[in-house]
């Protein structure tokens, strides 16, 4: 006897299920199909090309009217089911009641609309069905503005489609990088770059506060009060299973409609399939598992066996010209290792994740040709230990050459500036080599002037020689930053400037880093280079700083910290001393000591006490002494002309002025200054990074002293007549050091490399350059000169100072 099967929802999952049901036995069921859209089943995942105009709707229809008729299916399109009456086994809709023997729920999912003001304004839509696509196409006049909320798969496809229609598109994404579920940071960086290149504006960490407009949408307001104009807002932040009917009918519903391995709900006569179901606490949004479910549903309806087993899924972004692939599990799990390959010239990034000698995840950008091969390895769980060394090169790899350590330089465009001192770009060097038949560094220096001044670009010039001449040039061995790269610090600094690299992922991708996120050696260096070169664009990376620069105190051998308040020029007051004494007593500080730089050091402070202690010290006007940073430490002074009978100038006053100007700046290594009021040099200025010795006629400025591992007297930079000029030259010197030195080189080491004459030429002789250096330093200070103690005393970086959980009194409490 023919049974009645009612299907609610005419989407891709139920469409595939119907095909399987009819294949097995077309006569078993009398089928009625309800669909809320006024049309039959179409390939929803191909809506993106319909939006962009690359396909027509007709091309993506999978079941047309003729198909339903030929298979004897009664269609009720545009008619929503409003109720399921399980006792009487009927579904209720506008057209009355329809009885069923078996019911299949395939209601799919609904777009998640973020609950902000203005979400219901005309012009605010989701990206879900053909109506949405038609709305978008109607709004897409060239020059009109669209905002897409959500930088996931769907949002980016919408953004790319709208852009192809000529709209100005901005993508707002809540997380730190695009498609964070499918991509890691590096691939996210490349994707963002590709979208930006095609004119799509991408804003990450952008949280929508409200959608603005009177009659219809006019713009979007972010939490940080940034306003963005919009004629159209597309919400693509996610989907949630459509479970209302099932819920009202009293079926078991979690996040989705709960089904067993046979796709049967808590009612044995009701099955469910597709995005509306929850199986083993898991939801499904990609098409592959939905098709697997469809097969199981058909088997169950025919009384055959077969259970649904979720398989690995892979993702591809359907944006023309963007090649991106992600599969398997690269975001969770333990005991895993990475293999990373980057080709900056082609914009390629590949990362494989391996666990127990098996491939479990893959992320690829730029070259995804081997994606299905890797996906196969992931799905089959084959051991890959045999081919591990060459795995990342794909199935066609046949013993090719090793990775090219010069890939980053080879990838540079001709206009990239190699020598900053003399303004020589790569193309000019290559031209000189090929046209002039040059074969040595010295010849290139002589002809092009590249690397003939400070010499920090020598390594890059040699690499250009090697890339141009091939085997005819033998590269000298150099010391790379760390195992994550083959480039030296000097190479990296130069390339950051030459290629406008303004983020850590940008540096790691464009310079071919061999690890996913660097290490404790390169990350602090890169963080410094980026913030020193791009104070406006780069956001300081907290987790790339050594603990002292995160906790703003100096870690001691037992894990406690030392606290040194700033005393400008070494001058203090009774009130400050009282505040320090009070803090020592209040927080049980075990040791109070005078430092070599004329400050007081509170040693042995517990980490969790730091913010409170800083609040107390702040209240007395004391700020961080930065005795823990790669930055300005102290300016040591003698008493100078105010009290000393030998003093020639106000050395204390000058020291205070210098310290107030320079404090809070980040430098390649620590920087210590001193000012002595006469040649007796009681402040020991001649062994500092910069030391000023006052004389009757003015100020002798020495640089490059050392009194640590190495002992070295300063060399005279210049002698000037006025205090103002002494300060300007000191500031310019510090900025030149910030912009050029290798991370963790004190000034004396840096000067030994670039030469004192090179420093003099810029800081002393070239007045325009001096002024420019000072201006850049002062601009950086507008961003970085702030008391880190005050920020933390007011609750900043709380996670650093408080435990996540405290079970230490658990036993006592029980």
């Amino acid at each position, binding site marked *: 006897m023919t049974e009645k099967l009612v299907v609610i929802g005419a989407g891709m999952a139920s469409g595939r299920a119907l095909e399987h049901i009819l294949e097995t036995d077309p006569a078993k069921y009398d089928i009625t199909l309800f669909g809320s859209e006024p049309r039959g089943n179409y390939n929803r995942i191909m809506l993106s090309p319909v939006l962009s105009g690359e396909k027509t709707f007709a091309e993506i229809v999978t079941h047309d009217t003729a198909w339903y008729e030929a298979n004897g299916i009664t269609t009720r399109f545009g008619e929503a089911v409003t109720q399921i009456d399980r006792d009487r086994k009927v579904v209720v809709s506008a057209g009355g009641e329809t009885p069923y023997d078996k019911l299949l729920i395939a209601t799919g999912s609904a777009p998640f609309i973020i609950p902000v003001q203005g979400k219901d304004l005309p012009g605010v839509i989701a990206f879900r069905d053909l109506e949405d696509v038609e709305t978008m196409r109607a709004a897409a006049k060239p020059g009109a503005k669209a905002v897409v909320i959500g930088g996931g798969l769907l949002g980016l496809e919408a953004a790319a489609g709208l852009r192809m229609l000529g709209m100005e598109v901005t993508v707002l994404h809540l997380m*730190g990088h695009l498609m964070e579920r499918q991509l*890691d*940071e590096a691939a996210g960086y490349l994707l963002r770059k590709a979208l930006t290149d095609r004119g799509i504006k991408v804003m990450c960490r952008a949280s929508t506060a409200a959608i603005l407009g009177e009659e219809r949408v006019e713009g979007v307001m972010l939490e940080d009060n940034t306003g963005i104009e919009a004629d159209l807002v597309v919400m693509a932040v996610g989907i949630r299973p459509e479970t209302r009917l099932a819920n009202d009918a009293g079926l078991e519903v979690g996040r989705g409609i709960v089904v067993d391995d046979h796709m049967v709900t808590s009612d044995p006569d009701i099955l469910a399939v597709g995005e509306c179901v929850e199986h083993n606490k898991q939801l499904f949004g990609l098409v592959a598992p939905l098709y697997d479910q469809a097969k199981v549903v058909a088997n169950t309806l025919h009384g055959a066996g077969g259970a649904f087993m979720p398989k690995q899924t892979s993702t591809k972004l359907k944006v023309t010209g963007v090649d991106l692939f992600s599969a398997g599990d*690269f*975001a*969770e*799990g*333990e*005991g*895993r290792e*990475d293999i990373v390959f980057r080709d900056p010239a082609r914009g390629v990034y590949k990362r494989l994740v391996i666990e127990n000698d098996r491939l479990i995840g893959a992320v690829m950008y730029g070259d995804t040709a081997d994606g299905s091969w890797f996906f196969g390895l992931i799905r089959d769980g084959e051991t890959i230990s045999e081919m591990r060394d060459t795995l990342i090169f794909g199935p066609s790899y046949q013993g090719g050459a090793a990775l090219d350590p010069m890939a980053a330089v080879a990838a540079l465009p001709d206009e990239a500036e190699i020598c900053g001192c003399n303004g020589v770009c790569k193309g000019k060097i290559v031209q000189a080599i090929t046209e002039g038949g040059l074969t040595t560094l010295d010849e290139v220096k002589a002809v092009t002037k590249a690397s003939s001044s400070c010499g920090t670009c020598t390594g890059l010039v040699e690499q250009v020689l090697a890339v141009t001449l091939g085997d005819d040039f033998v590269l000298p061995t150099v010391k790379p930053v760390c195992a994550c790269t083959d480039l030296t610090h000097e190479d990296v600094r130069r390339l950051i400037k030459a290629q406008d690299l303004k983020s850590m992922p940008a540096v790691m991708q464009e310079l071919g880093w061999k*690890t*996913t*996120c*660097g*290490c*404790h050696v390169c*990350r*602090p260096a890169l963080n410094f280079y980026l913030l020193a070169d791009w104070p406006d664009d780069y956001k300081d990376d*907290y*987790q*790339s*700083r*050594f*603990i*002292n620069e*995160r*906790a703003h105190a100096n*870690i001691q*051998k*037992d*894990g406690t910290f030392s606290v040194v308040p700033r005393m400008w020029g070494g001058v203090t007051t009774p009130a400050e001393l009282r505040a320090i004494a009070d803090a020592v007593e209040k927080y049980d500080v075990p040791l109070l000591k005078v430092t070599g730089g004329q400050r007081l050091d509170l040693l042995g402070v517990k980490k969790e006490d730091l913010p409170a202690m800083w609040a107390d010290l702040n209240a007395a006007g004391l700020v961080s002494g930065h005795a823990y940073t790669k930055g300005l430490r102290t300016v040591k002074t003698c008493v100078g002309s105010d009290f000393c009978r030998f003093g020639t100038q106000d050395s204390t006053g000058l020291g205070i002025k210098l310290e107030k100007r320079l404090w809070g700046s980040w430098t390649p290594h620590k920087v210590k200054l001193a000012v002595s009021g006469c040649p007796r040099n009681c402040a020991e200025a001649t062994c500092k990074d910069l030391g000023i010795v006052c004389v009757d006629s003015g100020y002798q400025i020495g640089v490059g002293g050392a009194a640590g591992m190495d002992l070295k007297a300063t060399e005279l930079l210049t002698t000037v007549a006025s205090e103002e000029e002494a300060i300007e030259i000191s500031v310019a010197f510090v900025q030149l050091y910030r912009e050029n030195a290798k991370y963790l080189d004190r000034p004396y080491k840096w000067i030994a490399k670039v030469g004192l004459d090179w420093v003099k030429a810029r800081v002393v002789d070239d007045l325009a350059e001096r002024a420019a250096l000072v201006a850049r330093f002062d601009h950086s200070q507008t961003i970085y000169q702030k008391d880190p103690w005050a920020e933390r005393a007011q609750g900043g970086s709380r*996670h650093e100072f408080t*435990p*996540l*959980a*405290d*079970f*230490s*009194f*658990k*036993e006592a409490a029980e």
Partner: protein
Amino acid sequence: MNAVVSDTWLDIGSVEDIPVRGARVVKTPHGCLAVFRVAEGEIYALDDRCPHKGGPLSNGIVHGRSVTCPLHNWVISLETGAAQGADEGRTRAHAVRVEDGRILLDAAAVGA
């Protein structure tokens, strides 16, 4: 969800409470634990003591699935607690899992 989840797992907080590539401390009657969150999102827990000289690993720089001790730059595996490279030693690693964004710590780790 702050209470004990089962006899063996303790809810110690949300994944979001730990910065990416960062760590937080969990205090126990037997000393501190360091709970790490790596760039890809996984959570790991170790005794907050470097096998070298007891340095607080929670203060280290997290990279890949390792942490570098702030005192003398030993690199410790977050997965096993073993020192990497030429250094030898091991700190205790504790079972930890994530469920619905909450971090669950093996209760044995806090001596419960």
